[in-house]
């Protein structure tokens, strides 16, 4: 009984029990977390940049060492559909395929910024798919591939920070605008026009703060960093051809799925992507390089809507050649494709034809 009364009287005297202890513990924990973060970040940085093969080594090479005259930019379609060796032989210049699975114009913009800081490429081939210029949240998420380069390479910083404004929140940048989320003329947009409170209550770009961490830039890469130590898959030209031929059944399914995707409502052209495309074209041409924008062959037809027209308009604005091979039925045979990417034979056929077009149509007399 006595013990109880003494406990309750101490509660009355010290209503806020343990505030000091709590803040001391938080402080110590913070110090230990920072120590873990810095040591972990240092080890991961070292392992990441010392990889000799694998996707990280290729990205690091593309960003920091690539010096070829010709550069092929693109997503997985760019990487699989263009054989740089055939283009090099035909055009008489060195060519590197800098395509990267799952990436979009933002990654390509980073490559060009980094490349132009070192040298002036003579030819840049930009492979786009006809729907590439639409806003898609996942394309912003995939900017995490730039995170390891954020601290050491200022060229990529503003592009990486787009990740933090992908959902329309956080501050923008002088160069970039916030992506539009919804198409006009819909009730959905009515609600969104009222704006989320987040934009004015907390106008922060979270990515800027996350980058204070030394470990965070390597988020989700640990396993790949470790496996890269044991792999030895090296591609001198960046080209990763696919082997095998798609079956009729899979092709039909792919065409059906693509048709479904084309009907996705609310697609809007992303102003950031258009600006990225414009920057690549304008900065390369300003340094005397040539740019070709292509859409490589596809088995399942893409949409031909505003995204496609937006690309056409940018090319026309800067006077650079634009050719859409995705509508060319000459390629649309199963034996040329692995899935919606070309297989090795298809890529070789297309690359030879492209080299011919570059020499004869796009830049006659230059190569």
């Amino acid at each position, binding site marked *: 009984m006595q013990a109880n009364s003494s406990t309750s009287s101490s509660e009355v005297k010290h209503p806020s029990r343990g505030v000091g202890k709590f803040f001391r513990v938080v402080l110590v924990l913070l110090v*230990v977390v920072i120590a873990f*973060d810095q040591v972990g970040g240092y080890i991961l940085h070292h392992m990441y940049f010392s990889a000799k093969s694998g996707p990280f080594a290729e990205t690091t090479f593309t960003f920091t060492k690539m010096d070829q005259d010709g550069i092929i930019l693109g997503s997985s379609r760019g990487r699989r559909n263009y054989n740089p060796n055939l283009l090099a032989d035909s055009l008489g210049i060195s060519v590197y395929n800098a395509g990267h699975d799952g990436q979009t114009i933002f990654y390509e913009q980073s490559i060009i910024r980094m490349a132009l800081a070192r040298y002036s490429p003579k030819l840049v081939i930009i492979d786009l798919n006809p729907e590439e210029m639409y806003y898609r949240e996942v394309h912003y998420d995939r900017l995490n591939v730039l995170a390891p380069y954020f601290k050491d390479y200022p060229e990529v910083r503003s592009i990486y920070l787009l990740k933090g404004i992908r959902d329309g929140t956080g501050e923008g940048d002088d160069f970039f605008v916030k992506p539009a989320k919804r198409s006009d003329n819909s009730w959905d947009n009515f609600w969104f026009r009222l704006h989320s409170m987040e934009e004015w209550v907390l106008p922060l770009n979270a990515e800027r703060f996350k980058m204070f961490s030394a470990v965070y830039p390597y988020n989700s890469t640990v396993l790949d960093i470790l496996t890269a130590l044991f792999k030895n898959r090296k591609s001198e030209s960046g080209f990763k051809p696919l082997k095998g031929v798609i079956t009729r059944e899979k092709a039909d399914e792919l065409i059906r799925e693509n048709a479904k995707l084309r009907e996705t409502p609310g697609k809007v052209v992303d102003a950031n992507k258009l600006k990225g495309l414009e920057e690549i074209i304008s900065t390369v041409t300003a340094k005397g390089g040539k740019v070709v924008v292509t859409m490589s062959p596809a088995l399942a037809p893409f949409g031909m809507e505003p995204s496609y027209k937006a690309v056409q308009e940018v090319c026309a604005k800067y006077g650079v050649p634009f050719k859409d091979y995705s509508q060319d039925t000459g390629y649309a045979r199963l034996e040329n494709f692995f899935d919606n990417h070309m297989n090795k034979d298809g890529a070789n056929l297309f690359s030879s034809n492209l080299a011919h077009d570059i020499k004869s149509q796009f830049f006659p007399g230059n190569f």
Partner: protein
Amino acid sequence: MVFNSFAFLIFFPVVTILYFLLPHKWRWLHLLIASCVFYMFFIPVYIVILIFTIIIDYFAGILIDRAQGTRRKMWLLMSIVANVGVLAVFKYYNFFIMNTLWIANLFGAHPDLQYLNIILPIGLSFHTFQAMSYTIEVYRGNFKPVKDFGIYSLYVMFYPQLVAGPIERPQNLIHQFYEKHEFDYQRVVSGLKLMLWGLFKKVVIADRLGAYVANVFNFPHQHPGEPLTFWVAAWFFAIQLYCDFGGYSDIAIGSARVMGFTLMTNFRRPYLGQSVGEVWQRWHISLTTWFRDYVFNPLGGYRRGKWRGIFNLGVLMFLAGLWHGANWTYVLCFLVFYVFLASRLIIRKPLQKFDDIVYKIHPLFGRIVNTILAFHCGIFSYVFFRSGSVSDALYYYQQMFSFKSLKFYEGDASTLWYGIFGIIVLLVIEEWQENYSKDKEAVFPEPKAMWGKFVFYAAVITVIMLIGVFDASQFIYFQF
């Protein structure tokens, strides 16, 4: 605002510190404003709907309490109609139109019915049910209506459980707003640990597995003849769903606990349940008990015999399915689960015999077998839950059992391996919590020494930063 966002990382400490600094008499107002800000981080204008239901139910509570006889019922009915009406317009109107058009088309009619092009307000079903529990409890005489409009508003809007529960009862929550909560080191630390575990479940496990699950469930036709892929995606989805919603609940309960509030337990390690009934009792407890108290028991529960009980259970499961979403896939999900639950009641004796046999071999063996079987009953129903349409779900089932090859879609290999790592951690921690922890509120099996604790928690935070998915993704249950 989502719990796994950078905004919440700022919001939570600011709100909590201010809460403890403010005099007690202003704390309710502080929490109410914070809750409004929290909700308006989504789509601000939808707070109007919340205010509408708050006003209706606040006055309904007072009127029910004052009235006698049939008038009490009338005021209750008015409150229920208002709440269900909001749900009907925002959640079920298009579903109703879709089904009406489908039936009309069967008879060759083509009525000119228009769909509403509106977004479902976040967490609508949660706060509507919480509001309804208030008027029902007042009607039953279990709870005296609150006179303070602000406190009632806070009961509906209390930010930790506003958008995805736990769906509270007035008896449990409202009195806590009147109590003065002092800073208590043990309680604050315990709440923070629960939040950390919830965050781990969400960003390390749920969101990671979600990437694989989405690739299979969103495009099932791209994986024909790969039964293993369909099984793995179904397993992963079961874990994803639990870690997503259970993680949310942990953060909700933990953040409330830090400020001194006790919210009801929402999940009790459901996948460690050894029967389908036990899984049901451990899953989304605040909703299942809501339906038990306000639907199942008033219908007579099991009191009127086994078959009537099974029928009542069917009604409960049908409504629970419909509560989740305006789509037949949710209803079918719960009906599949109902089949398992009802079977357990009908064929009790053979199942008891089966239990006797497996437990006789070895208690641990019996436990493992029963846990796996119960888990798979959940999986069969979740296929409907996650599939975009009934036809997709049927195709999914068909593929699960088309043992033609061992081909397996790996997806992004790191997704697979991080996901598996997360599942192992989940299993170890929950098994420890269930069977080895002496303190039932303990979250992690942490070292005893203070320095060991620092290292342990620093390691957990580092792992979250290293392999968590930080795309501020929404929680699955926000859509309900």
